[in-house]
């Protein structure tokens, strides 16, 4: 248990430190953020032709309201915490990789929904935007990550999985 916690903390710190480095910001985070804005704009444009996307900014051409998907807004940090937990937990590597992909996908899908909903909430009511932004969506993103984590842990319960993980952990 102590080993799991130590590895978890180490991976979280390592991934966050890596994420903050300028090369990774330029090569991964900025394109990822712009991609999130484009995906959000494309989805919103499917039912609203007045949505514009430029880089990280999603803007309404009718009233000029805009949201900016900044570093920290792109769901990567939440995904990093989840991914670190999966990598730290003793499990077969195949299982870990599937979990990482599923976790990243789940957080990003919900984050796209969050961005689009905040885009329209902000145009409708600044107060509703603030409330949803500060409380509702943070709770939902956390619940999403927690649900993925618990489901992933549950799929590991089969004894053969534990045995396999133990076998991987034991040095030859």
């Amino acid at each position, binding site marked *: 248990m102590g080993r799991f916690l130590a590895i978890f903390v180490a991976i979280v710190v390592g991934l966050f430190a890596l994420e903050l480095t300028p090369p990774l910001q330029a090569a991964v985070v900025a394109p990822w953020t712009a991609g999130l804005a484009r995906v959000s704009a494309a989805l919103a444009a499917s039912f609203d032709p007045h949505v514009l996307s430029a880089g990280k900014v999603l803007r309404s051409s009718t009233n000029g309201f805009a949201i900016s998907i*900044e570093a920290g807004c792109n769901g990567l940090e939440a995904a990093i915490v989840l991914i670190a937990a999966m990598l730290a937990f003793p499990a077969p590597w195949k299982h870990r990789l599937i979990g990482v992909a599923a976790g990243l996908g789940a957080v990003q899908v919900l984050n796209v929904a969050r961005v689009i909903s905040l885009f329209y909430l902000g145009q409708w009511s600044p107060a509703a935007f603030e409330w949803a932004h500060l409380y509702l969506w943070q709770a939902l993103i956390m619940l999403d990550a927690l649900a993925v984590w618990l489901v992933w842990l549950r799929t590991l319960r089969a004894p053969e999985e534990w045995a396999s993980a133990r076998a991987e952990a034991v040095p030859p």
Partner: protein
Amino acid sequence: MPVRLPRHRFARAACASALALALPLPGLAQLLGTASSFAVLGATPNVTNTGATVVSGSVGVWPAASITGFPPGSIVPGTGSLHLGDTVAQQAQTDTTTAYNTLAGLTGAAIAPALGGQVLTPGVYSAGAANLTGTLTLNGPGLYVIQATALTTASGPGASSVVFLGGATACDLWWQVGSSAAIGTFSAMQGNVLALTSITLGTSASLQGRALARNGTVTLDSDAVTACAGGSTPGFVVGPAPGIPSAPVPTPTLSEWAMILLATLLAVAGVGALRRRAKLR
């Protein structure tokens, strides 16, 4: 949270504040005259735009008569119109020149050209070839005039920003630039930029204020420019009004505390799973 200033900065800021109080700064509307209705104003050879720029306020050029890229650029309905070499743009240029000369004639307290990390109180400052990387903090209500021989801001998400505390507002910030200003891509710039030559806004930059170039061009690229309708000067209010493009609102997914909470929950659940696993053995 109160901002603690280093002693030398406090002295410098206090000095600049005293200067500002002693100078008969005109009201902002008086200062800009008819140019106050313009968000973007250029001179020669043109004003150019690429991409879906949204401007709140008029866009004009004089003595040239060429504005390109509108559309796809657009002006929020009811906030202004295009003025290509007409008498309205001509008068706005005349008023911009007056405002520029007024700002340039103020005596500013010298500050370091690297504006990031500085904390200023209302006043007049002289920064030389100013560059903004990181955060410039303005603290307190009142006018801020930053004189610069040139102005650049860093590109990249969150690479440069101006933070307003204690009643300071974007609309009370004035940049008097002795040559050209270059606002970096993705920058969220604030304040009224009056440049002697040209003003360039990088891709996806936003400017809450105005881009007024006396002799050169204004270049836009998928930007948002919101002419200030606010400020602490009487007659001005702060913040986006209905129909006015807002500066993009950042939308963080999780706060620091939420991330700590999430990590704790995952850790607890993980430890629980490991305990169950130990019992199964």
